[in-house]
């Protein structure tokens, strides 16, 4: 038996939460910020990439292949390779996490756009809708369910991945998990942070699902 087993070290402790409310809140806030920034940047990059791949068919394989290549690189390795350039900063974490969202976002955008029925586009064209309006008013709204499905997967994975940011000192709730590890395996700290992390993922998923329902009233059955 290890020494710490002789001392009470409960998994759940109200005292821990009360005494460390500020630190928990700060870590949660960092976690949410890192997730939001990374997923938003990912979407901002994925849309032009997907449109490019759709416009120039020959680019589709390299674009999807490149995002797949990025996805295969383990996050810890990517942070380690980035750190000499971007330092032990939140930027390192955001670059890495953004890179990971690209695969699923680009793939789902392409799938969503190619799923828009041809006769709908034909009808819009017949009504005099130009290419930009076609994209914004016809194609993207119809692709929305696929895009949101991708966003949900990307967001949930990102929430989990933020914890690895601990290696460069910006891991949101991962900071608490690691400090609990270093603090003689302080179970309450480790467990509270883990539960909050999973809860964040579930809440984010539910919010995105709700947003999709609101944005696509026609899909309601």
């Amino acid at each position, binding site marked *: 038996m290890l020494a710490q087993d002789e001392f009470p070290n409960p998994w759940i402790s109200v005292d821990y939460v009360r005494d460390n409310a500020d630190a928990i809140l700060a870590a949660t806030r960092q976690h949410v910020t890192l997730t939001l920034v990374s997923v938003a940047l990912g979407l901002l990059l994925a849309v032009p990439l997907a449109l490019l791949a759709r416009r120039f068919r020959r680019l589709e394989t390299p674009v999807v292949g490149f995002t797949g290549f990025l996805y295969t690189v*383990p996050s*810890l390795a990517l942070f380690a390779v980035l750190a000499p350039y971007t330092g032990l900063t939140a930027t390192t974490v955001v670059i890495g996490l953004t890179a990971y969202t690209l695969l699923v976002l680009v793939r789902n955008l392409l799938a969503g756009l190619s799923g828009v029925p041809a006769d709908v586009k034909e009808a819009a064209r017949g009504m005099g809708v130009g290419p930009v309006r076609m994209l914004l008013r016809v194609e993207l709204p119809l692709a929305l369910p696929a895009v949101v499905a991708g966003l949900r997967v990307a967001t949930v994975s990102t929430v989990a991945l*933020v914890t690895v940011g601990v290696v460069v000192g910006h891991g949101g709730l991962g900071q608490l998990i690691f400090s*609990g590890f270093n603090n003689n395996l302080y179970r309450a700290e480790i467990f509270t942070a883990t539960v909050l992390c999973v809860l964040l993922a579930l809440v984010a998923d539910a919010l995105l699902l709700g947003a999709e329902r609101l944005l696509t009233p026609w899909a309601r059955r």
Partner: protein
Amino acid sequence: MGAPVSLVADTAAFLLDGETWTGSSGVPARLVEHLVVSGSAVLLAMVLALPLALWLGHVGRGGLLVVGLANASRAVPTFAVLVLLVATPVGFGDRATVVALVLFAVPAVLTNAYVGVRDVDRDAREAARGMGMSGWQVLRRVELPLALPLVLAGIRTASVQVVATATLAAYVGGGGLGRFIADGFGRGDLAMAAGGGVLVALLALLVEVSLGAVQRRVEPGPGRRPPVATGIAPGQV
């Protein structure tokens, strides 16, 4: 912090240094540690998940459970599980690492194999039945061969994920190539951390590409490609 050019040089210097490659903390020794832990985890996950997945797919039940498990595993941070396990009686060391890795390999193996068997063409299944095959024979001679590409896709996905998670294990006292990253960051030697990052990335890509090649070999011709040839990816690690 120096200019990027010298950082590339520093990283290269670390990777080319003879010392990096020798001894019990050299790259070959760390690679063996990494592969032994990862390999045992993938094998264990296969032993646990494949029979269950094949059976569930064969009888066409438990879909909600399988998909739910895959989704839930995406929301749980691997890093948290590694630390949580160390704080339980499982404790430190390779055993804890393997347990954590198995936990994260099972959903990928399970989901893909389950979907592969479940989605086998009804006609093929009924034809086999009509030829007088028993349920076991249908599974072994019809469903399993047709599901093989997806079964392998699951194993490939799980392997890449396990190799990645095994890296993280260095942070809870494990060995493997992750040590270079953990020690590099620990000592403020970013060239060492980056060198370790390059090695780990190469290993992950190598596993992905080689298992992808195996998977393509068993895939049916282009005309008969199953709808989900790439498999179902779980979360990144």
